[in-house]
């Protein structure tokens, strides 16, 4: 018999308490911001914009948090995948300019899907090479990891200058994704809605893989205790390469979305956003995908609200948010249990 159905039990079970408290930070921050902003329409617009921004940051950060959790690798070169993904997509959109500039939303989305696929495949391949050449020699050596991955980021940015040139590129949104949908006085930008859909789809897929597949079980277990997973007979190194490649591809996807969001592209696009990405994974709890998702939304809300209400402190606001959260929960919102 090989069924694994949960065995029956007649004894009462203790109650499980899910930790909902961190989730309340999102509505809490939104409610606190409302009187400061003063205008409900602006508040809704800023909140939706924050959700879109948060989803893009989550997509960029999710791979990095798993890479750290699984193999204790500090990859400061993650920004390179964000930038390279965006540049590859820019190149892919060139031959597809007919579709990308068409008035048909379907053709626009098809062009974008192809560009995103190209960006993800390119950054996935780059991630594979990056892991073999740069990360592998420095496993377990944090200082060297920081130095060599930062070096890798600099080299990648210079290679972008060599291949695509050093000037700022325009990354125009296809016509079908420009403009906004109006709900009364509230204007919801189409691209931001797309970003929310993409972010939610990525989160749902990751949740599905992590919770419903054996690979996902291995990743979750490996994040917690790599040594024990190996003692059970699984090769964590191979798993890590897979996660690194997937994380790099997701960074590439995030890079494409981020460049379209900004509608401009420079070699430093990854470096510009990487500080936010690190804040998100620290706030969320290193190695926690759920925490990363929540952290990304909080960081984006904080950036958008303070950018509107207190523009002079906008840059420092997320550092303050991180400090406050770490004072409350030093291991992040949803810490991963470690051995």
């Amino acid at each position, binding site marked *: *018999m090989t*069924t694994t159905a*949960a065995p029956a*039990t007649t004894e009462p079970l203790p109650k499980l308490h899910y930790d909902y408290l961190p989730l309340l930070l999102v509505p809490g921050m939104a409610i606190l911001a409302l009187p400061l902003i003063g205008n409900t329409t602006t508040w809704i617009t800023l909140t939706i914009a924050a959700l879109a921004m948060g989803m893009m940051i989550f997509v960029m950060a999710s791979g990095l948090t798993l890479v750290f959790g699984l193999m204790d690798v500090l990859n400061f070169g993650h920004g390179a995948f964000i930038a390279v993904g965006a540049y590859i997509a820019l190149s892919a959109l060139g031959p597809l300019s007919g579709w990308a500039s068409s008035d048909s939303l379907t053709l626009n989305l098809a062009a974008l899907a192809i560009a995103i696929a190209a960006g993800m495949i390119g950054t996935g391949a780059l991630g594979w090479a990056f892991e073999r050449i740069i990360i592998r020699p420095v496993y377990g050596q944090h200082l060297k990891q920081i130095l060599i991955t930062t070096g890798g980021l600099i080299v990648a940015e210079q290679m972008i200058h060599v291949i695509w040139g050093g000037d700022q590129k325009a990354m125009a949104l296809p016509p079908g994704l420009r403009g906004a949908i109006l709900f009364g006085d509230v204007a919801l930008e189409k691209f931001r809605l797309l970003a929310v859909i993409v972010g939610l789809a990525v989160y749902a897929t990751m949740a599905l893989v992590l919770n419903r597949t*054996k690979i996902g079980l291995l990743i979750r277990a490996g994040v917690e205790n790599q040594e024990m997973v190996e003692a*059970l*007979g699984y*090769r964590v190194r191979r798993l890590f390469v897979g996660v690194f490649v997937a994380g790099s591809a997701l960074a590439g996807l995030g890079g494409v979305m981020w460049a379209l969001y900004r509608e401009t592209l420079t070699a430093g696009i990854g470096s510009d956003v990487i500080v936010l990405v690190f804040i998100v994974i620290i706030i969320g709890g290193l190695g926690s995908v759920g925490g990363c998702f929540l952290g990304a939304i909080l960081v984006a809300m904080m950036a958008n609200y303070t950018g509107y209400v207190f523009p002079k402190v906008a840059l420092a606001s997320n550092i303050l948010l991180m400090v406050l959260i770490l004072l409350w929960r030093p291991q992040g919102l949803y810490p991963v249990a470690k051995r």
Partner: protein
Amino acid sequence: MSTPLLQLEGVHTHIGQYHILQGVDLAVPRGALTVLLGRNGAGKTTTLRTIMGLWKPSKGRVAFDGREIGGLQTPDIALSGISYVPETMSVFSDLTVAENLRLAARHGPPDQARLDWIFGFFPALQKFWQFPAGVLSGGQKQMLSVARAVIEPRTLILIDEPTKGLAPAIIESMIHAFQELKRSNTTILLVEQNFRFAQALGDTVAVMDDGRIVHNGTMAELTADTALQTRLLGLSLGEHQ
């Protein structure tokens, strides 16, 4: 006498600058439960971790079922038929009991008959089947850790101090579980500080001191010889009961 299932010959292990194992010679007979005794710091845990490949031997030979495994990676050693229950239990706290066991079953979903057999001596695992392992008590975590090692038949099980910090009632269920395992003819190498537990289960015994095996023999011999107990362990088994 048949060839031992596991044989260590002159095994040395260094951890950083520390020379922990200093020429361990140990034979684990097939189908028996061998207890590895010794004071704290004698090198018992290091011996198990060296067998498992978690620390690499710097010198010497580790042979399992006639095959050299001293240079293999940990996953390959596990795949050769050895399972390991570490001193720290190392259950995956964020995974449910079911998920922990599903992960340990390498050849597909856990077999229901095998699960029922395990639930027979660890009923708490059935009760907490869908609960995260992190909410279990220390004893229940130890049960899960042992269950994970036996969820599929293995040739050799390495177990590091399974009774450490456990309540007497849990230790009784551990004794029952290991007796069941012995009945299934599984070979076990057990590191233990609880002499009553060791005495109840052990067929053969090895005593370690300063990174070496200083005594090899049957548990019956050691149990019967108070002077030998005092010489090897500092005090007799009787004084620990």
